[in-house]
């Protein structure tokens, strides 16, 4: 399209637009209806994190899976314990990655 024609159309459209409206009490009206700000509380997240970590630690404390898996991994032996450990770590990493991406998208 011809640029000068494009400019002419844009100029016509801009001319037709009235621009910003005067306040006429609008802002005051909105300010009267403004609710108190709710602060985002962080404690449920941290409580969940601590409870989850504590439960994991307790459940693995008396299980030989963690020690066996770690020992076999260091020895280079791909045992069932090692594979379980790797799968669990991969799963948790993926979950953390997915959660981070979702949080980033929301913002």
């Amino acid at each position, binding site marked *: 399209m011809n640029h000068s024609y494009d400019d002419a159309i844009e100029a*016509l459209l*801009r001319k037709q637009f009235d621009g910003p409206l*005067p306040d006429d009490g609008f*802002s005051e009206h909105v300010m009267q209806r403004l*609710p108190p*700000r709710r602060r*985002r509380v962080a404690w449920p997240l941290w409580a969940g994190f601590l409870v989850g970590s504590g439960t994991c630690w307790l459940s693995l404390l008396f299980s030989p899976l963690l020690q066996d898996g770690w020992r076999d991994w260091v020895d280079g032996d791909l045992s069932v314990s090692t594979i379980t450990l790797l799968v669990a770590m991969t799963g948790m990493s993926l979950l953390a990655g997915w959660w981070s991406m979702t949080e980033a998208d929301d913002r």
Partner: protein
Amino acid sequence: MGVADSAIEARIDHALVARVLLGDDRRAFEQLLRRHQGMVRAQLRRLLHGDEATADDLAQETFLLAWRKLDQFRGEARFSTWLYRIAYSCFLQACRKRSLRGGDMDNGEVEQLPALHHTIDLQMDVERAMRRLSAAEQMVLLHCVQLGLSHDETAYVLTMPLGTVKTHATRGKAKLKVWLAAWHQTADEERTP
């Protein structure tokens, strides 16, 4: 508004947002509100084809939402663009609720409006021509040309792919060019002695 002015305005907005978030400062929010209410209300009034009462209701909803969700503003877009996006989603929600949105008039016809020749009021003709565009073309031209947003910002506000925004802008202008051709001819004739 120049690039430098725009950058200064953006910095002022960011400072005000920071004051609201850090100090729960209602006065800072009031300043943001006073700075942007005019354009947000103008945007909504255009989207609603002049329905002032509904536009102001939606504008109020927009600012209340902005107040509640201010911590989600990360400053990637200008504050005004962020507000336009909230206002547009309020508008869409209202349309869904009350079927306010006018019929999509895009029937592929590109012809001159029969009554456009030699009518007295150019403004009215531009208004009529705008209403004949498809809803998407109207939205894109409103944001790109009349509200002065870039194509990227328009894509952000309308949650549309950038390519689609550009296509609608080009098509919309092409249709207006044909429909408003009579005005250009008159203007050309007036220019020629």
